[in-house]
């Protein structure tokens, strides 16, 4: 649904993408919406000479990247907040899991998280004071073949089990949105909004009198009033007749919630705002990940249901964190995923001259 609650053509922005590869919406995880492509200089390629240059896409649109996220919502565990004091690496958070826990519950209620309480309550000490708003998403046929083969196995001294991933994906009608119908297009888009995206809250807010949404407004800086507090937002409307003209709105309260890239960018463009530490624009964190694929002894029929339902959470804590990071494993329901999609397989067959 759009911000006015109309279903409309959810795929319209994606139909003319250059990065499409045999799908109406790209099979690549990251998208390039045509109007949002930058030029040759992509400013978050901060190490242009590095073979590991940071490259990530995001959706600069109303609702942002919540349109395209997978929707997985595992909580941090208590140790994650105390890496320095427990493992001698990184930094401790200024708050701990116990302090954040009630707010996790609030967030899970707002987003609409489905999950199985008994599977995850107490995971490495991460107690849950409330049940999930919705039961976990049913396992795919593929998961049901994998789970019994893995549950209880010991890998490198760790006993593993397959659990249902907590995810912002409805397992029943919730918050005016339908249950997942298994369209298998979570990334880049859930056409029925069974997966949460931020327009859910936006619609709620816009229903209030006196609330105005100004889309296509790119903030260029924040300005302080006489008392030193931020009271003005300067922006450019790129859809207007004069896109370079600076426009200004004032407010008693200004909330900057513009993503890990745009937040520091705006602050840095705002005369050193909130940067006494010198850390604004530094220490960007990303999902470090890689993909493993395998062949199952029998058909498991992927691409039916959500792109991922289950995970393995058992490697998320331990003394090893003194030397290396913890990790979690998402079990895909999309075949060979990014490595060998059906399109790639057929493309390779055809490219190699196999017909009939």
């Amino acid at each position, binding site marked *: 649904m759009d911000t006015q609650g109309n279903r409309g053509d959810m795929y319209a922005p994606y139909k003319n993408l250059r990065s499409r590869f045999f799908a109406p919406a790209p099979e690549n995880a990251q998208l390039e919406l045509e109007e949002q492509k930058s030029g040759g200089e992509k400013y978050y390629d901060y190490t242009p000479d590095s073979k590991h240059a940071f490259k990530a896409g995001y959706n600069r649109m109303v609702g942002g990247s919540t349109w395209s996220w997978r929707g997985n919502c595992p909580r941090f565990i208590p140790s994650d907040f105390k890496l320095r004091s427990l493992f001698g690496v990184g930094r401790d958070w200024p708050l701990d899991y116990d302090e954040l826990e009630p707010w996790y519950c609030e967030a899970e209620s707002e987003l609409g998280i489905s999950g199985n309480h008994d599977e995850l309550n107490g995971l490495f000490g991460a107690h849950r004071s409330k049940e999930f708003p919705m039961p976990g998403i049913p396992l795919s046929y593929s998961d049901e073949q994998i789970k019994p083969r893995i549950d209880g196995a010991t890998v490198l001294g760790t006993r593993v089990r397959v659990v249902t991933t907590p995810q912002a994906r409805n397992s029943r009608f919730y918050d005016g949105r339908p249950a997942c119908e298994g369209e*298998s297009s979570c990334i880049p*888009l859930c056409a029925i909004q069974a997966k949460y995206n931020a327009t859910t809250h936006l619609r709620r807010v816009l229903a209030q009198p006196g609330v105005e949404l100004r889309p296509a407004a790119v903030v260029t800086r924040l300005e302080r009033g006489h008392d030193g507090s931020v009271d003005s937002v300067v922006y450019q409307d790129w859809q207007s007749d004069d896109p370079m003209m600076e426009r200004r709105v004032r407010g008693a309260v200004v909330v900057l919630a513009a993503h890990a890239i745009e937040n520091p960018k705006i602050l840095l463009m705002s005369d050193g705002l909130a940067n006494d530490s010198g850390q604004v624009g530094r220490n960007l964190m990303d999902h470090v990940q890689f993909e493993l694929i395998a062949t199952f002894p029998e058909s498991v029929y992927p691409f039916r249901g959500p792109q991922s339902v289950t995970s393995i959470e058992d490697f998320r804590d331990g003394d090893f964190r003194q030397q290396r990071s913890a990790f979690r494993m998402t079990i895909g329901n999309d075949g060979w995923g990014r490595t060998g999609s059906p399109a790639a397989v057929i493309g390779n067959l055809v490219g190699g001259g196999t017909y009939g």
Partner: protein
Amino acid sequence: MDDETAFMELSALLTGLYDQLLNDPEDRALNGPIAKEYARQLLGTFPEKFPVLLNAYKSLAEANPKPPIDDNLLADLRETETFKNNEFVAKQIVNIWYFSQFTAVEDRNAPLLDGGFFESGYVWSVIKSHPIGFSDQPHGYWTRQP
């Protein structure tokens, strides 16, 4: 042999979709309009190569007696210089039937051309799934073997 028939037969030969495009009368009838549109798009994109490829097929398929439409006929077609010189078009015929998408040039970064029948692409039935982004089944259908 008219172009429409030739295209259906050639498509079946290249894709292996014999039942869907030739043998099953209902499927063949349903695919007729789709084939017509695909042929129109391929002709528009490859105005010289597509007819040449089609004629190469016709010259083999119109033999008397008519040869069976099978792997032997495919092998004969692939041996012709015409096929070799226009094989890229043959690959797009496979792509358009399986994905309802094809490209105009042999370049991985080439923009995709939309055949217009994404939901009818045969890749979905091959993998026993559904068109990505389109599911008409109830919540939880994915727990069951197709």
